[in-house]
């Protein structure tokens, strides 16, 4: 945890999303909205993604970011928000599951 009292502007996903928006980029924001069991990132954590698949932040500490980025690029294209769920109960667990055994729900939406 950072001891900074102010925002870490260079790494803060929501600050980066705003900067990307000002540069005219299309942006998606992914948010952890629910967790069960031992999830690596708390509810409210963000991953922000641009249309080229560049991203900042994290929703799982590296376990499912790849899948979220792929979905996010689709969301940028369609404008339709999606709710994603990941976990060991998922049939794709061995590809993109959480090795820690937790489950998470991630809301992915387009900015604007």
């Amino acid at each position, binding site marked *: *945890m950072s*001891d*900074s*009292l*102010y*925002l870490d502007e260079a790494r803060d996903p*929501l*600050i980066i*999303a*705003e900067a990307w*928006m000002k540069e005219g980029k299309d942006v998606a*924001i992914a*948010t952890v*909205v*629910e967790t069960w069991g031992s999830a690596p990132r*708390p*509810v*409210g954590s963000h991953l922000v993604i641009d249309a080229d698949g560049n991203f900042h932040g994290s929703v799982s500490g590296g376990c499912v970011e790849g899948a979220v980025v792929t979905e996010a690029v689709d969301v940028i294209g369609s404008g339709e*928000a999606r*709710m994603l769920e990941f976990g060991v109960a998922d049939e794709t667990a061995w590809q993109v599951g959480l090795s820690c055994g937790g489950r998470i729900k991630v*809301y992915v*939406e*387009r*900015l*604007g």
Partner: protein
Amino acid sequence: MDPYALKTLNAERRARRAAILVTDLGDGRDRIVREGDQVAGDLGAAIAKAFRSGNSGSVEAEGRTFFLNAHLPRPRLVVIGAVHISQALAPMARISGYPLEIIDPRTAFATSDRFPDVALHAEWPEDVLNRQPLDAYTALAAVTHDPKIDDFALKAALDANCFYVGALGSRKTHAKRVERLLALGASADRIARIHAPIGLDIGAASPAEIAVAILAQTILAFRSRGLDAKGAAA
């Protein structure tokens, strides 16, 4: 997410003010609620709870599902006085998640030898606080016993509506302090917010025990923001 909501949220976070992004997970519409904004019904109750706890989560209200993402500034603790109590308080506060800064113009007290790994200002509170103002997410504990050092900081903490203000000293010492603060232009209502004698009453005797009492009182003040004495939402 609405671009305007994102801009507003980031502006609030930069200014160290609490805000909650409320997203309707059904239609994706969102809005920013600031601390103190009135929101009615079950949603309002959930928002008030999220401001106090800082926890984000989903809530069912009005037949819809909302996600509340609570963004609270990091609470911090400013201690006036590089004394024995502060030496114990510094590591305890850090472990508890309340970063601490110490201000004391007496260079014999404010040494990095006595306070390793602590943000230490061997300056007058006036100078430090003009540069880095106090705010509602800052706690202030004045522990020098010296009016020349403590009083300005206490008045500044009351003006900034710090979530916790505590001052070391007996009831007799505090009675004199109240008179001085009144003379400085602080209102009686505001002065009544000062915790003096400082710290939760746990019978603390040693400097380290007093540090525990101060930290516990700070945490209680932070976690009960916006509640009256009975624990009901104000």
